């Protein structure tokens, strides 16, 4: 019995993975695949945010800084030096990690709301700087990426499915890293820091160091998302790469889904992106404001009624369902 309980999560992960893998083979509508890619990408960024914001409760509203740095690093390397984005994506991650050190040193002195405000400011300062960098970063006008056709070595593909699988790989990477951290001393330390920094220090947790480390990982992953996104949309400008909406969405999907949980950001993204797709099909894409109005309403509702996130609702339902199933099974004799 306990054996089944222990293996069942893996069974569901396998089912999910199988569905995720065959999805683009079954669904060929490019509009739908586009939504799937958005879901995977934002779930991935949510997972990256969640490592820091969810487990260690460092509520950043400036992850666009790393998204943008990743995007710009790989694009500059590609256009100015002809270096493949496969190298650029790693370089972008490294640049983001380096940037996270001074930003973290500054912001981690602050707690709660003032940490959030400081992170907003850092992302905005970076955006404003890139608006000024006309010589090597194209200033406010931005630039389109050279279209190389189907060039897998340059991270450009003809088929949307390829981008889909790339985003899926990123998400799998993020989830695997989260899973490993959650089940190691680092996961315990992160939650301890999120719960009570003073108490964590009292039992030997170097809170500054652990926050710095998780910020490095979170920034690195977020930057990978930035490179991917720019390679997917073939265009970059500061307002896209450092968009405040990226910072907001990263936090939002995690909170709505379930802050500090492995699958929370995935659940949250599916929910929000599905809502957004429905809204678009009802209202068309012309109405600015509809999507964020609905997002913020969802956010307010979740905070007021379910601050631990919606994933709890699903696991409760699942448990009720399986308990009911187990109870029913008991009533029926095995040999009857």
């Amino acid at each position, binding site marked *: 019995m306990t054996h089944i309980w222990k293996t069942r999560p893996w069974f569901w992960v396998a089912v999910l993975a199988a569905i995720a893998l065959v999805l683009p083979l079954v669904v060929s509508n490019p509009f739908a695949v586009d939504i799937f890619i958005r879901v995977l990408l934002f779930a991935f960024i949510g997972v990256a945010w969640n490592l820091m914001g969810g487990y260690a409760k460092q*509520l950043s509203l400036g992850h666009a800084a790393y998204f943008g740095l990743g995007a710009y690093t790989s694009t500059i390397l590609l256009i100015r030096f002809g270096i493949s984005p496969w190298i650029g994506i790693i370089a972008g991650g490294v640049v983001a990690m380096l940037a996270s050190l001074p930003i973290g040193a500054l912001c981690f*002195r602050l707690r*709660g*709301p*003032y940490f959030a*405000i400081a992170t907003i400011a850092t992302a905005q300062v970076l955006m404003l700087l890139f608006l000024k960098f006309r010589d090597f970063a194209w200033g406010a006008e931005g630039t389109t990426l050279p279209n190389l056709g189907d060039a897998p070595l340059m991270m450009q593909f003809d088929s949307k499915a390829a981008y889909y699988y790339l985003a899926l790989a990123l998400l799998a990477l993020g989830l695997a890293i989260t899973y490993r951290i959650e089940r190691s001393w680092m996961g315990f330390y992160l939650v301890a820091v999120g719960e009570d920094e003073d108490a964590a220090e009292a039992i030997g947790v170097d809170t500054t160091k652990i926050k710095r480390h998780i910020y490095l990982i979170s920034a690195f992953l977020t930057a990978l998302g930035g490179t991917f996104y720019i390679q997917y949309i073939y265009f970059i400008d500061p307002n896209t790469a450092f968009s405040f909406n990226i910072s907001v969405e990263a*936090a939002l999907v995690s909170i709505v889904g379930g802050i500090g949980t492995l699958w929370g950001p995935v659940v949250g993204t599916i929910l929000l992106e599905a809502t957004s797709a429905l809204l678009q099909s009802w209202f068309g894409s012309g109405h600015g404001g509809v999507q964020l109005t609905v997002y*913020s*309403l969802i956010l307010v509702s979740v905070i007021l009624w379910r601050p631990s996130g919606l994933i709890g609702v699903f696991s409760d339902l699942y448990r009720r369902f399986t308990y009911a199933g187990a109870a029913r099974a008991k009533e029926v004799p095995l040999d009857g």
Partner: protein
Amino acid sequence: MLATLAQAVVNGLLIGGIYALVSIGVTLIFGVVKIVNFAQGEFVMIGMYISFFLASTFGVDPLLSLLISMPSLFAIGVLLQHFLIRRVLALGDMPQIFLTFALSLLLMNIALLLFTANYRTVQTPYSELTFHIGPVYFAVAKLIAFAIAMLLSALLYLFLHGTDLGKAMRAAAQNREVAMLMGINPDRVFCVAVGVALALAGAAGSLLMPFYPAYPLVGQIFVLMAFVAVVLGTLGNITGALIASLMMGVAESLGVQFVGADSGLIVVFVMLLLTLAFRPNGLFGGWAR
């Protein structure tokens, strides 16, 4: 050169008066309720739209519409505290931050839906009026706004120090437990604090209307200014917030004058980060009251 400098300082001080109304509101809520209101700027925006529609529909002068915008926002504040903020006070950082943050997003986007992103302006007889003392020009609308802002700040100060309710509020800000032991009803005090803070934001909106366009995202710049001023002026310290706001206005104005027209915001953010880095407890001492 000296005249340009003086002009920039005057312009900065005048707009700083408006920033002061917003930051005093933020600091009042933070001091009493211990919540950072990310949506404070959106209430400035609401105040602006109230004045705009009163002016465009009924021809009410924006300064007169203070009498409507302030009570309306006071009522909104009481409702906000009673139905929303109160419910997250016992919870952690996440709900407290993201409730008002979500509210900010919500109000901005509803405004976008209802009023579109267009800039709305109100022309008053004094909108373009200026006079000068020596080489320094004063815009009448800004001067009036500044004067009323200072008057409202002074009234708030008198309210906090001269009335029982105001004293209760200060007591609650200093020590909630002791205040409750003294028989102060925290719910009522909190409602009034948020109400007053929002009324100040509404006033800022109405005062801005004669010389500043209303649009859905207009609150952002004001709330960011307010955050910087509130940190500079020490969290929860009203006089500190006032002085810091005036300084912020001058700093922004000097930035625009001497660094470049699009650098106002960058100056603000850099100031915020520098403040947080070097004086996380503000310029005006510890938790002075």
